[in-house]
């Protein structure tokens, strides 16, 4: 079942490039070409974005019946809607008549979607309920057969709604697999869970979607250089950052095909960012809660393009207090070197309004389009795509290096045995295993395999 898929319509050169990514564990390198190549991009839309689970939105964005938001899976338009019965749906935004998109707004509230072309009208469940002059022109049309198509699979985890364009992909629960343990640290520490503040900020960058996704698996190495100016100003409080003696970092790799980085205080609870009284033991195990209370920074990617980041930061170290926020991301591919960034800030639902606002302000002033940390990331990521897509880059077979701290390069120690959570876990955040995991999942997905090799073994 695995073989064959990659050869159809794929040039042998592209085929070789994909295979080389599959060797990342041995070589620690990948062909840079995958970061700016038309053929690869087309294949990703067909394979990666059609066969995996892609993040759509958070349930708190559409709290009321009729609330909807326009969303995308790869390049396909969808309506993320809570219907009148309260059910969350992900409907393909393409009219059953001539196919134009029915929704043009980013979000709103409605009981009915009316197509602007010939006014076919759908309930917010997707059901076709209105065809103008049906009795005259469409006598035999069975409206029951013309509901808006739904994404083949829709499911949610702790308020995060994902959809899959594949009816046969394994369930979301299986897809997130063991990685749920890490999502839980960020989503389930407070009784009422998390909610989104405002609407996602969206902007476009001239790079490949994988650059943001791989950086967010835990490229801790770049923080020292790219974010030096923000670090020097103590926006990341020094006692919590890499220079803080008490801080323990880990890299979580190969966790059901996903990966992340965590840093926590070994000997101190409540790193400072969330209100102490927000933590509850209701939803977490003892070891999870222990860790959740000590987290100072974490970042991770659920393959393919959903990332999260939680940090304790300070937008104004002189006058404010350290504040935690949860930032979630979607790296939406618009082309081989064009990505639309979607950026949400989440806060504990049960926290005070004062805290929510402070957390939001801290989030946008550090990790958003105008964020003191992130503006510097966006300033350098476009160069990766530029060089990767260049003639000379292709001619010399330019490769990107992910060898840091892996194998003979460093002394990262695998501590999975004594670590309470799942995955192959290392005692440092200066190793590239998190990114190797991401590209391994990419390779598996591009060649029609499940992203998690463990799942495959079970199935065989």
């Amino acid at each position, binding site marked *: 079942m695995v073989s064959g898929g990659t050869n159809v319509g794929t040039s042998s050169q592209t085929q070789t490039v994909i295979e080389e990514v599959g060797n990342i564990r041995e070589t620690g390198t990948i062909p840079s070409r995958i970061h700016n190549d038309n053929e690869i991009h087309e294949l990703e839309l067909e394979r990666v974005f059609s066969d995996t689970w892609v993040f759509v939105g958070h349930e708190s964005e559409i709290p009321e019946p009729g609330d909807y938001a326009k969303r995308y899976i790869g390049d396909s338009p969808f309506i993320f809607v809570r219907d009148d019965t309260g059910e969350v749906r992900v409907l393909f935004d393409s009219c059953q008549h001539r196919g134009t998109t029915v929704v*043009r*707004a*980013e*979000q*709103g509230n*409605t009981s009915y979607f009316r197509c602007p072309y010939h006014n076919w009208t759908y309930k917010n469940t997707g059901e076709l309920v209105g065809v103008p002059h049906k009795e005259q022109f469409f006598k035999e049309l069975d409206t029951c057969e013309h509901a808006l198509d739904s994404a083949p699979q829709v499911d949610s985890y702790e308020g995060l709604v994902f959809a899959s364009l594949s009816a046969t992909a394994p369930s979301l629960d299986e897809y997130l697999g063991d990685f749920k343990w890490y999502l839980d640290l960020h989503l389930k520490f407070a009784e009422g869970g998390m909610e989104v*503040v*405002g*609407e996602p*900020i*969206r*902007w*476009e*960058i*001239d790079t490949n979607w994988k650059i943001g996704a791989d950086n967010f698996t835990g490229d801790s190495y770049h923080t020292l*250089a*790219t974010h*030096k*100016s*923000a670090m*020097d*100003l103590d*926006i990341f409080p020094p006692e919590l950052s890499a220079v803080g003696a008490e801080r323990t970092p880990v890299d979580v790799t190969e966790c059901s095909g996903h990966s992340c980085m965590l840093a926590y205080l070994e000997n101190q609870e409540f790193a400072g960012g969330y209100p102490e009284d927000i933590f509850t033991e209701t939803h977490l195990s003892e070891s999870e809660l222990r860790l959740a209370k000590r987290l100072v920074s974490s970042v991770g990617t659920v393959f393919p393009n959903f990332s999260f980041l939680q940090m304790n930061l300070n*937008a*104004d*170290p*002189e*006058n*404010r207090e350290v504040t935690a926020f949860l930032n979630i991301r979607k790296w939406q591919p618009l082309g081989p070197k064009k990505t*639309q960034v979607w950026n949400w800030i989440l806060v504990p639902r049960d926290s005070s309004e004062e805290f929510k*606002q402070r957390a*939001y*302000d801290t989030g*946008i*002033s550090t990790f*958003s*389009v*105008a964020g*003191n940390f*992130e*503006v*510097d990331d*966006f*300033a*350098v*990521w*476009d160069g990766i795509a530029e060089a990767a897509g260049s003639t000379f880059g292709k001619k010399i077979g330019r490769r990107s290096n992910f060898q840091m701290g892996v194998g003979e390069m460093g002394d990262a120690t695998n501590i999975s045995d004594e670590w309470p959570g799942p995955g192959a876990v290392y005692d440092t955040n200066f190793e590239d295993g998190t990114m190797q995991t991401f590209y391994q999942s990419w390779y598996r997905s591009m060649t029609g395999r499940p992203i998690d090799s463990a799942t495959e073994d079970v199935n065989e």
Partner: protein
Amino acid sequence: MSERFELRLECEEFLFDEAERLDDGKLHEWLELLTDDVEYRVPRRVTRERGSEQSSFSEDGFLYREDMGTLTTRVERYDREYAWAENPPSRTRRFVSNVRVHDESDDEIRVKSNLLLYRNQGDTTEHDLLVGEREDQLRRVDGALKLARRTVYLDQTILATRNLSFFL
């Protein structure tokens, strides 16, 4: 000259001087034009249906929501050689027009203006264009005008820029 006309000229002069400081990268001098209790906000625009009862600007979504402290932190970051987003520095040129003085008390003046901001950076011809309306509250402090509150209403819901590493 009518008093009203004079007041508009004075406001324009303030806004043009402010624009010059920002375009010339004199950010510390820009901070001097702000009151200590300045509020600086750029709400997120949301594309809604025509006739929607909700505002086309988010109530709680922002690109910037700043005070003097956070603005100062930002400016101090730009002082550093490692602030890559502005290294090489952006070349910005802002066109401030349609200045409308809306109401006034003795020392508080509400001024609206349009902003067209061109930004080019590095060795490429590509550029960003940001367009919007600004609603400012100017306050007379010791005889001179200062900016006490600014809200920028951008015309784009999705920003065509890799980062907002500059002020609007």
